[in-house]
């Protein structure tokens, strides 16, 4: 076996081993989540940290994405004289895929990196051991609460992203066609049913689980001082984004199988 084969084999082994460890971490989180005490106070605090504090980023991004999508959609629709379908096309694009995926990636960058760095910092400064010494289950208190908070925050942030995107689309349209807000939103939601919104938005609960689990795992297993904290933070973003994009393919397929007519 030459060096490149050896390094590929080593990388594959590491990847499989890490996947196994993260899966075991996730299963433990699911089991511990239902154990007493439920840590509701800490969950609320983490929802505030992950959700409320991500609002400016999500709203700004949503607005910008809405404007850009609207401009692109108009360029296409104009060729067929179908300008009236622009709001509906934008709503479908935002709600079905762009909103959930973009929110997932943005939260993975902001919150995932934060969790990785925060827990990594607590690990190397022995604060996690300090929690254990104070008779607190650090895994439940730190990791599980953050995972649940991400699962709660993601669908809410996705809804905000979708709405901001439509507002952005309206602003871009109104500059050209003077359409009113009422008519724009009426046209946007004309072809969208409740299930069309619920299914893609609920899939972000899974995104939240992935972001919370991967970044908590990497923070929790940090070694090597400040360099290790930086590594945990970076890897949290990279790995959770990668897993999220791949799992998204699977979830889209599942949604289309479960709701062939309804989910866009």
């Amino acid at each position, binding site marked *: 076996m030459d060096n490149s084969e050896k390094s590929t084999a080593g990388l594959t082994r590491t990847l499989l081993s890490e996947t196994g460890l993260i899966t075991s971490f996730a299963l433990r989180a699911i089991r511990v989540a239902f154990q007493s005490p439920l840590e509701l106070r800490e969950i609320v605090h983490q929802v505030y940290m992950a959700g409320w504090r991500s609002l400016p980023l999500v709203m700004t991004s949503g607005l910008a994405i809405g404007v850009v999508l609207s401009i692109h959609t108009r360029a296409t629709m104009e060729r067929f004289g179908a300008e009236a379908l622009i709001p509906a096309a934008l709503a479908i694009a935002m709600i079905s895929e762009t909103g959930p995926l973009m929110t997932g990636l943005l939260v993975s960058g902001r919150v995932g990196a934060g969790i990785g760095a925060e827990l990594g*910092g*607590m690990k190397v*400064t*022995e*604060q996690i*051991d*300090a929690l*254990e*010494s*104070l*008779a*607190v*289950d650090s895994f439940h208190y730190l990791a599980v609460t953050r995972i649940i908070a991400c699962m709660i925050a993601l669908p809410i942030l996705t809804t905000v992203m979708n709405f901001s995107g439509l507002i952005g689309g309206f602003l871009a349209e109104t500059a050209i066609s003077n359409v009113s807000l009422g008519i724009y939103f009426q046209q946007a939601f004309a072809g969208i049913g409740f299930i069309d919104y619920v299914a893609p938005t609920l899939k972000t609960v899974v995104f939240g689980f992935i972001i919370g689990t991967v970044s908590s795992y990497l923070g929790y297993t940090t070694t090597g001082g400040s360099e290790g904290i930086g590594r945990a933070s970076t890897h949290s973003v990279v790995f959770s984004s990668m897993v999220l994009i791949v799992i998204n393919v699977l979830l889209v397929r599942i949604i289309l199988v479960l709701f062939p007519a309804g989910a866009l």
Partner: protein
Amino acid sequence: MSSAGQAIRFESVTKSFADRRVLDGVSFDVPSGETFCIMGRSGTGKSVTLKLLLGLLKPDEGRIFVNDVEIQTMDSAQLVDVRKTMGFLFQYSALFDSLSVAENIAFPLRRHTRMSESEITQSVRERLADVGLERELDKMPLDLSGGMRKRVGLARALALKPSILLVDEPSSGLDPITTREIDKLLMNLKASSRTTVVVVTHNVSSARRIGDKLLILHEAHIVAQGTAEELDQSRDKVVQQFMSAESEVKNAV
């Protein structure tokens, strides 16, 4: 073997990390109410001993008793009750960065007692007064000096009034005056509450001041244990080197 009458008992404890053995068949007892100092060069398993006592690490072999209860077979839920009877002062204090001084000390009280907020505030003030920091209630840990952080760490470790206090390198990174202040706090604690104290240190003069008994670890084994006077009489070369290290440094200066 019975462990009655002992706050802590180590029976033939062995612990390795990768291929490095840091403790090899280590046995010792700590009677209730005594201050017991574990000494040794860096990397000889002193801090590992404390983490084994708290159940943060599991021994590869051997048995560990805390207040007559065998702990190495316990899971994390069972260890919660044992840990409530113990306090741990970490080498670098390990205060929670995101909480103020008062919140750090109130944390275990909120988690494990049914005290009202006013009772918690009163208790926090008392613990801080014990360590001479009653005016630093609202400061954040990063705004404190190393010695102050250590004292807040001590106040937090004592918040639940534990029967056993574990202290990891109390003089690490501190000047001699602050070291003496911390030593004095530990001696006062023993006098006022008969708390069993296990101190890991490489500071021989500090160990002489506060320790009823001293133990020296070397290359994963215990080379000596007894009072400071008994260790001074030892003919073992490692013990002699260790116990005279302080005076040699003073002479060199």
